[in-house]
């Protein structure tokens, strides 16, 4: 059996299709084989029918040289992908450096080859479309079996100078498939097909499709060309953590954005990306890796990207901060903000540079947000001043109490005391603090005091737990002292007895 298996393995290894043999034997000018032992091993590990496809491509002279084969092997493609490449004349022809000018050459390393950076063969063979079986002809026309450029390829797209000048053809081009639910169902039934409809109504869409401003982002601006990945792929330009940089490609480029204005007529700022990186959301997303934190698209939307109106901003924030929004809706500030046409949340917290809110924002002292705003817009309101002072006093009481109690956990634990009740109380206090801070958005004393009560109780429990543990420790020390006293007396007695015996023995 073993001998048979060995013999058949040897026979399989020896079976090299005839057209492949010259490639295997081809040598460089210095006499070294062009296909290395590693390349040979890759060929050996291919299934027979894949190896046969290599031979057929060589036979058809479309796999033109050993160097060309070496390039394809260097992609380390899985067998099904390699089979797709070997049966696609577009890829085979455009990846042969002996057959293409750099301008049209697909290369695993365009920078090294001096070819078009968009024609990255390695990226293309990882593209989400290629992985679903859609290759060059899917977009460019023709078929994978065409042996020359067919007329349809030239006709499907606008002329080169036109298509670079006016990019408005791109959304409709992609939508040929992506807006067709019947077609898309065959590839990804869960993928929405309303991107074009949304895009048409978006600021980008209006700018590009109506105003014919080709600076506006279209599909390829965000998703790429031959290296498109799904949004859950970490290498994708539209992966949550990469979205800020993708948007920033244009929106952080002052030169590129020059002349573009917001509704009020002011120029569009280009500081959003830098501000976002310093914000609580930016830090959560980019530094902590919290993918639940919003990127640009989290607030502005993706295909339906619009600048926010005063009302819509508040609704966007409520998507995550629903409780705070609800409290604000019932607060006296709601009407006042509407009167001023302020956009609720951003008025106090800012927009792209939202910092982690602190208790220092609250209070009736100059420098606090409450006092500064009221001094300007709602002067001489003693009730508001007293309310904000009360908020601050209560918050300080809880936060200071928390800060003072927390170190006791380690201190008491080191002494071997039971710190579980204290730890539990501190956890409840933390939750209480969150609720108390959130309740400020109601700007109402009763609501605030109700929310602050569990925190205050937890703090009280923490103090009691500390007192109980300290009492226990005092009891231990006193008990030890008593035990030492008793044992010392006993030791003294024994010592006296020993001395007495010694004295008697000497006498």
């Amino acid at each position, binding site marked *: 059996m073993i001998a048979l298996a060995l013999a058949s393995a040897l026979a399989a290894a020896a079976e090299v299709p005839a057209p492949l043999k010259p490639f295997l034997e081809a040598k460089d000018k210095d006499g070294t084989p062009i296909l290395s032992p590693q390349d040979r091993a890759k060929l050996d590990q291919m299934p027979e029918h894949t190896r046969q496809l290599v031979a057929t491509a060589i036979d058809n002279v479309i796999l033109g040289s050993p160097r060309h084969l070496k390039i394809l092997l260097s992609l380390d493609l899985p067998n099904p992908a390699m089979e797709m490449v070997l049966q696609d004349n577009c890829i085979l022809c455009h990846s042969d450096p002996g057959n293409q000018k750099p301008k049209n050459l697909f290369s695993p390393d365009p920078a090294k080859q001096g070819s078009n950076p968009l024609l990255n063969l390695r990226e293309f063979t990882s593209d989400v479309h290629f992985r679903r079986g859609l290759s060059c002809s899917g977009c460019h026309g023709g078929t994978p079996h065409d042996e020359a450029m067919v007329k349809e390829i030239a006709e499907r797209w606008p002329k080169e100078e036109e298509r670079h000048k006016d990019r408005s053809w791109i959304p409709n081009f992609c939508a040929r498939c992506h807006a067709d639910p019947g077609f898309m169902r065959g590839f990804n039934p869960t993928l929405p097909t309303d991107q074009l409809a949304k895009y048409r109504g978006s600021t980008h869409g209006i700018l590009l499709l109506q105003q014919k401003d080709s600076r506006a982002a279209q599909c390829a601006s965000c998703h790429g060309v031959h290296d498109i990945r799904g949004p859950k792929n970490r290498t994708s330009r539209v992966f949550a953590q990469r979205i800020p940089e993708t948007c920033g490609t244009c929106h952080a480029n002052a030169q590129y954005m020059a002349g573009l204005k917001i509704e009020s007529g002011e120029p569009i700022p280009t500081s959003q990306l830098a501000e976002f990186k310093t914000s609580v959301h930016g830090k959560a997303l980019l530094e902590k890796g919290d993918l639940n934190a919003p990127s640009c698209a989290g607030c502005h939307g993706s295909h339906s990207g619009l600048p926010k109106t005063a009302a819509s901003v508040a609704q966007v924030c409520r998507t995550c901060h629903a409780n705070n929004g609800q409290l604000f809706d019932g607060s006296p500030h709601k009407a006042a903000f509407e009167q001023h046409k302020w956009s609720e949340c951003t008025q106090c917290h800012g927009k792209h540079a939202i910092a982690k809110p602190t208790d220092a924002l609250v209070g009736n002292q100059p420098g606090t947000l409450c006092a500064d705003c009221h001094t300007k817009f709602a002067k001489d309101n003693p009730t508001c001043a007293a309310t904000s002072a009360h908020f601050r006093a209560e918050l300080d009481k809880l936060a200071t109490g928390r800060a003072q109690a927390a170190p006791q956990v380690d201190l008491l634990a*080191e*002494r*071997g005391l*039971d710190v*579980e009740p204290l730890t539990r109380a501190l956890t409840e206090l933390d939750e209480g603090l969150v609720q108390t801070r959130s309740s400020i958005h109601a700007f109402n004393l009763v609501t605030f005091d109700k929310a602050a009560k569990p925190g205050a109780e937890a703090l009280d429990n923490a103090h009691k737990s500390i007192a109980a543990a300290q009492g226990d420790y005092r009891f*231990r*020390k006193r*008990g*030890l002292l008593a*035990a*030492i006293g008793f*044992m*010392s007396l*006993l*030791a003294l007695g*024994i*010592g006296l*007895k*020993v001395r007495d*015996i*010694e004295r008697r*023995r000497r006498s």
Partner: protein
Amino acid sequence: MSAQPRKGLFGWLDRRYDLAPILAFMQHKEVPLGAHPMFWYYLGGLTLFFFSVQIATGILLLVYYQVGDQTSYESIHFITTKVPFGWLVRSIHCWSAHLMILCLVLHMLSTMMLKAYRQPRELTWLTGFSLFGLALCFGFSGYLLPWNELAFFATAVGTDMVKAVPWIGHTLLEVLRGGPDVSGNTLYRFFALHVVVLPLIVGAVIAIHLIFIQKQGMAPPIGHTVTRGMKFFPDFALRDGLLWLICLILLATLAVFLPYGPGIPGIEWELGKKANPLAPAYPGIKPEWYFLWVYQLLKEFPPHILGMEGSQAALLVATVLFGVWALLPFLDRRAAREEPSPIFTDLGAAALLFVAFLTMKAWDIGGGGGPQPDAHAVARTCAIFVLVAGLAATALRRIVWKHTWFLFTAAELLHVALHGLVGMSYLAAGAIGFVAAAVGVVLTGARAQRTAAAGDRS
């Protein structure tokens, strides 16, 4: 005139069991007094005292402890937080365990240095040595019982060493763990070992050890003729009791003020997190202090050496050292002839320096305290400490006790200096130290033979 029959309980027992010979033995039993400090005679009793504390506190812990991977951690947590004085019992149990091992080691070192193992007390030494081994087993098996993270990983590392035993290593490992990995099965068998098997064996061996001591008495120093002694009852026993009482005060004080140990790796027993077999082992796991030198020795060996695995070679070295230590009474022929044996005194001093250097390195002394201590800085700092201590001890031995043999100590100090100060690898430096000691022994032997021959001729 015949003696008056005793009254009371003693008389009642005496009439039935003839206690008079025992009483007579106790009345005549004496502890030798001489030129050496009496302190060394108390260490055995002190070890027994700590062992008794272990038995008493162990029984108390058993009242609430429930073995099992779902209950061990929880029950220990309950004992230390909810059971009245549970924290005290556990803390005393842990402190007493460490102090027992410390006293046991000191007792063995004093016995070794005073050559009390010599003929006719070879079996007393061997039973004592067995008790030392059993105490280490006690420590190792008890370490896992809280089923916390530290215990779990330390046991995983410790039991893994068994694999190094040639041929049967893997089988032994499975027997020890009750499977391929540390699990609830390991916990059950370690519990059985700790509370049933080891106490029974230790009880029996202690009984034999004590019978030997009572039969032969305590050993006087070499060349010392016993002219007088201290009555064991009540003189020595009262002093013993006094020391035990002081140690009890010390134990209680330590248990109250340092309930989880001094916080030094290898001497700490804070419960921490529950063991999670699926969690990755975290760096810096160290065994208890008395295993630290073996742990460090394992680290000093490369993965493969001389056709063996590094761990096998390290364990071979440790086994040879333990073997030499166990067989001292049979190797030290001069002591058996009641002659001073400076070679073995020096061997003991060198062994102490060897163990001290490895233990200090395992503690990363001088490494800066970070998660990745600087190995060279650790070796240098530890070497400086050991060299200073070694030279001071050598000077003391020369000046106070008039010792003349320092070859092994010198070889070990050379080993330490080459590794710590010159930067040579531990093993290469050790090999040079070993060769230097061997050459020294040969040259000294040759010189002694020449001197003897010259004496014969003259």
